[in-house]
């Protein structure tokens, strides 16, 4: 029958819309399309096809924000700021303030090669991130958001400068990673960036504890500068990075599974994007690590795509009045 053929073809076109939308609206749209069809029509008209494809694309582009991603950002936002603040502190101390970088590599003669710190003109860019992190840890959510806005603005400006001029600025990926984390933080729902008290305490004490252990282990009789050259703390980047990424990823995943909510599950791919970029851009990492980072991000994005297709698009229909 031509009617069922036409219906099947309309349904095929409606696949341009997300699954959740189709579940909610598909039957209604098919009914409207068939009501508009001419007698004996077997194929959708080209203008109809274009209209449905454009409608589906528009729906996919604008739809996720109101619910799933917004909810995910409420979790991802503060965590993104915490990560940006930690990275800014790390880069300021180890790439700008100290004479050499903390990580080097072993050459073919098993000599440990120490890399000098770049000492760029971009060090002031890290300060707003650190201030924003401090505001977050002190529970000053609105101030944290304002400082994040300032930091993102400065970072995007620096990104343009770093790409287009010969100014001695940190590499492009540094600006890109910080700006992406900052945009995630700014995307969290209005009213400031907040972390629960226990999370704030953990963010202060865990890195503090790690730094303390590191300093004890480093055994640096001659102070900061001396330990960089022959202290036992020195490490090949790959030996440090992989455990850090595994621990960080496992912590985030454990948090997501513990909370088992779409907010947390949506937050993971949002945070994974800048982290994957950081891993891909870092020196000294093998192709397998980079590929694994990108693959993990893509898998989490696919999960996000699946999640965003499942929500109610419009308010439920009004219940009829009793007896009416």
């Amino acid at each position, binding site marked *: 029958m031509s009617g069922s053929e036409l219906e099947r073809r309309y349904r095929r076109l409606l696949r341009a819309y997300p699954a959740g939308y189709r579940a909610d*609206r598909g*039957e*209604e*749209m*098919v*009914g*409207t*399309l*068939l*009501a*508009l069809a001419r007698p004996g029509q077997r194929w959708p008209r080209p*203008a*109809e096809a274009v*209209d*449905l*494809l*454009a*409608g*589906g694309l*528009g*729906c996919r582009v604008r739809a996720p924000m*109101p619910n799933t991603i917004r909810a995910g950002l409420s979790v991802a936002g503060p965590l993104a700021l915490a990560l940006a603040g930690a990275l800014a502190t790390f880069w300021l101390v180890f790439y700008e303030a100290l004479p050499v970088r903390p990580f080097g590599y072993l050459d073919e003669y098993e000599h440990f090669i120490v890399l000098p710190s770049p000492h760029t003109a971009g060090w002031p860019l890290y300060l707003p991130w650190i201030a924003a992190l401090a505001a977050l840890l002190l529970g000053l959510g609105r101030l944290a958001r304002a400082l994040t806005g300032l930091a993102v603005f400065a970072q995007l400006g620096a990104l343009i400068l770093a790409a287009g001029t010969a100014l001695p600025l940190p590499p492009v990926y540094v600006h890109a990673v910080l700006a992406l984390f900052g945009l995630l933080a700014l995307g969290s729902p209005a009213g400031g960036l907040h972390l629960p008290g226990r999370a704030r305490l953990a963010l202060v004490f865990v890195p503090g504890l790690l730094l303390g252990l590191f300093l004890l282990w480093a055994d640096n009789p001659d102070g900061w500068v001396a330990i960089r050259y022959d202290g036992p703390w020195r490490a090949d980047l790959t030996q440090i990075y992989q455990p850090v990424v595994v621990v960080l990823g496992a912590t985030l995943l454990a948090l997501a599974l513990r909370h088992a909510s779409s907010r947390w599950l949506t937050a993971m791919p949002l945070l994974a994007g800048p982290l994957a970029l950081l891993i891909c851009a870092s020196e000294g990492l093998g192709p397998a690590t980079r590929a694994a980072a990108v693959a993990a991000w893509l898998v989490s994005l696919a999960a996000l795509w699946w999640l965003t297709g499942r929500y109610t*698009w*419009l*308010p*439920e*229909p*009004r219940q*009829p009045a009793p007896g009416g």
Partner: protein
Amino acid sequence: MQEPTFLIMTALAAGPQHGYGLIQQVAELSGGRLRLRPGTLYGALDRLAGEGLVARDREEVIDGRLRRYYRLTDPGADALATHARRLRANADAAEARLRIRLRAATT
């Protein structure tokens, strides 16, 4: 407010309508000039519902096909009235200027 949105809201002003009925009414209101297609119509309804100007009303099944009705909300009716007043004021202003032009041409 764009013309299709204005006409969709105008079509809903008299009472709830389903998608097919809305397309027919918009065509009639525009004198056949504007024929909405379903992708455009439902995109506009989503946007209007998101702004609280339109809401779902009721559903019925006719010949095995789902029909969902939409209605104008109170804020939607206020927005439509405001826009209609603005259009009327603009039309009045345009006609007044055209009368001046006509007088100048005839004297």
